[in-house]
């Protein structure tokens, strides 16, 4: 009985392992659909964008939380914003305006400073990364 | 973008090198103890540890002036029996004749004056008298 069960197990395994070849005895295209250079570039650009926007968001959060003072914030925000803007422009150049829009941020608005304090300009609200498309529109394999 | 910084590499290697030397020195000169079997004792003396199996009979009391007296021989293979006198806390409850132990102390004139006994945990699984 054990031997029979063992043989059944082996047979099931062989069947499942052979399944891709049984389903497509002759495949029109047997190449692995690995990302091409264009896919890689797109992904890199999206990574750059998400990384820059996440860093910007964290910088804004840290500033609002008082972890970064105004002087340090002024020094850091410029390069960070330029990085984010460059990432967004790179995406826009390549893929058009659909990548340019973004949601409003989820942080509360910066409180207006009293007029007699030499406060920095109110920062632009931090954009969330490009809103994800509906899952239904993501191409399935 | 520049990714190479030889200065950083040199500093890191230097720190690693100093650390390695320090570790080696500490390990060699500092806190290591020879751990020998009875047959390896040879002309050793001083602070060391002996790994062996307890041979009896074990006599005496570790709390008394005369101490707990027993012997140690090689776990594997034959060897002389090294007499041990242990003084200190009661030995671990698993200490018994036939148990593998590591005994630490001072070895001189063919005898170990021990101050620490560590017993290996017994096999997790042992026969019951009713069965095997």
């Amino acid at each position, binding site marked *: 009985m054990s031997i029979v069960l063992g043989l059944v197990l082996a047979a099931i395994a062989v069947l499942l392992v052979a399944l891709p070849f049984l389903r497509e005895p002759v495949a029109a295209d047997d190449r692995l659909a690995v990302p091409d250079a264009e896919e890689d570039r797109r992904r890199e650009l999206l990574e750059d964008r998400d990384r820059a926007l996440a860093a910007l968001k964290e910088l804004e959060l840290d500033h609002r939380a008082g972890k970064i003072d105004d002087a340090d914030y002024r020094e850091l925000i410029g390069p960070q914003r330029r990085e984010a803007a460059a990432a967004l422009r790179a995406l826009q150049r390549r893929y058009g305006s659909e990548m340019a829009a973004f949601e409003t941020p989820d942080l509360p608005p910066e409180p207006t400073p009293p007029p007699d304090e030499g406060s920095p300009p109110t920062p632009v609200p931090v954009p969330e990364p490009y809103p994800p498309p509906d899952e239904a529109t*993501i191409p399935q394999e | 973008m520049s*990714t190479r910084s030889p200065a950083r590499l040199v500093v890191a290697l230097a720190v690693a090198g100093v650390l390695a030397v320090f570790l080696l020195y500490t390990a060699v000169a500092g806190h290591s103890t020879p751990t020998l079997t009875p047959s390896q004792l040879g002309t050793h003396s001083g602070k060391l540890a002996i790994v062996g199996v307890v041979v009896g009979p074990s006599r005496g009391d570790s709390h008394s002036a005369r101490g707990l007296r027993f012997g140690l021989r090689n776990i594997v293979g034959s060897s002389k029996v090294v007499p041990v006198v242990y003084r200190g*806390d009661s030995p671990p409850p698993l200490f018994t004749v036939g148990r593998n132990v590591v005994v630490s102390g001072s070895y001189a004139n063919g005898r170990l004056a021990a101050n620490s006994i560590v017993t290996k945990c017994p096999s997790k699984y042992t026969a019951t008298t009713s069965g095997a």
Partner: protein
Amino acid sequence: MADLGRAALVVSLGLSVYALVAGATAAITNRRRLATSARNALFCCFGSTLVAAVVLASALVRHDFSFTYVAQHTNRTLTTPYALSAFWGGQEGSLLLWLLVLTGYGSLAVALNRKLLRDLTVWVVPVLAGIGTFFAFVLVAVASPFGTQTAPLDGNGLTPSLQNPYMVAHPPMLYLGYVGLSIPFAFAAGAMLSGRTDERWIVATRRWTLAAWAFLGFGQLLGAHWAYVEVGWGGYYAWDPVENAALMPWLAATAFLHSVMIQERKGMLKVWNMVLVALAFELSVFGTFLTRSGVVNSIHSFSKSPIGSWFLAFVVISTVFSLALIMWRLPLLKARTKLESALSREATFLYNNLLLVALCLTVLWGVLFPIVTQVFKGETRTIGRPYYDFFLRVFGLPLLLLMGIGPLIAWRKASFRGLVKLLAWPIAVSILCGVALVLVGAGSSKPGLIAYTFSSFVLATIVLELVRGTRAVGSVFTLISRNRRRYGGYVVHAAIVLLAIGIAGSSAYGTSTRARLTPGQSVSVAGYTLSLRDVRRTQVPNATETRAVFDVGGRWHGTLSSGDNQYIFPPEPSREVGIKTSWARAEDLYVIADDVNVKTHVVFVQVLVKPLVNLIWVAGIVFLLGAGIALWPDAREQRRLVTRLAPARV
């Protein structure tokens, strides 16, 4: 049924070899159907291993002593949980558990990532299959759990002193941790083999790494608690090689978890991360080798078998493979940015990594030292506790400090002025704490005082982070739910602080005394007075219990007893300690009556007072909470990742 188990393992071996060969061929030649076939083989390998596991588990529960393994590890009196715990209690069963968890984890990781990371998973499959092939081979050819014999009337039961819940929980926790580190390793190797060394492999395995690390950490704490309450020597960690075998991969994984954040944020430390993930994996296999080979002396007893040399060969081959892979792909592992300032969060993460790896290598050196001296000097020398304690302070105390500074310091570049301003309150709190501690007498131990002071600094920074963040965002729940990794990490840091306080308190500020007592006599320590009331011997099923009963006065009034149990079947003794935990006084009163003479009523007793030791166990709970927060799935983040990784629309 044993035949079915053997057959299932042979099928597993065949499938893993196929997955290795076919998977590698498919990846190299870019063949889709073959890659799918190899992936199916990995899934089926899990299936057949599961069949083998069910066969063994069923035999254990049924006490089928025709299985040699079952007869060697259970007897008829063993209850089901302990009979099942024999699965991992013995050599062969624990190897089967390794293979089961490996193929299970591997199948799940590959299944979850097969669409979005198809270019990586095609390489991950043969790497996982390679590891699986080794374990399957050992199970089939060297250490099979399905050997059979003429069934005896009864088998070897689990030593009564080991029949406690820890035996059921501690080993599987550790295995889930050890084996879990194979997943990030396989994905890292897959990234290098495929030439796609971007951050996707890190993102894909982030939760796997965190889960494995959490299991390994919590498993170690379970073991420490087991030692504390059951073994009865008054301590919880002996720097034993088997204990260190779990600590080393955990330290490497801790360093890895931190440095991957830098790679994700800044594209830096790519080579370092590859080295770390390989180190964590190799150390987990090396730990398995250590516990089975008997090459180093350990109080933990495991069956010795020729398996040690097989494991050593596997460790050597996989290490050479990892190093060769890293060297080959060095050009692809160049950093995208550089470290801009020594005063930045990136830099503090780097310092933290160096300290963690230094501590890991220190422990590794201590473990290997007896082998090294035997090989080079012909004489085994062992390294004692003082070595480990010294380096724990040298590396651990700065690490503690960095835990407080790191989260507050800005990315890229922080100004010294800004940092001092930010740290002003935590520094003030820690100074006040330090002064208060000195005033109450904690200055008796400098390392202890430093540990407490640094701990108060870190706790103050964590509280400050929470308060500031909550003010900025509106609610603490929103703050944590929108920043799960970060705040989960802070909770874990808080756990480490509790651990540090508990260790410092119980070791640096503990007191102990020894005494020889007869009934009516007493001993005092740290405000407690213990009077020996009586010596008792009681017969219970399968054991004779000998106890010295103490009346305790002073800071607590009550009764404590301690002594030993002498079991009948098998004839083994076990020490039974008396522990009184007081949360109000934040300490344990720990009594070890290590020589109780029933005839003369003379008792040799050791009494210890261990301040704050229970914070170590509380730290375990907090640790799990922090890991849970960090692991908490984030639907928005998941959608972002899908967008990034999904193939572009035409």
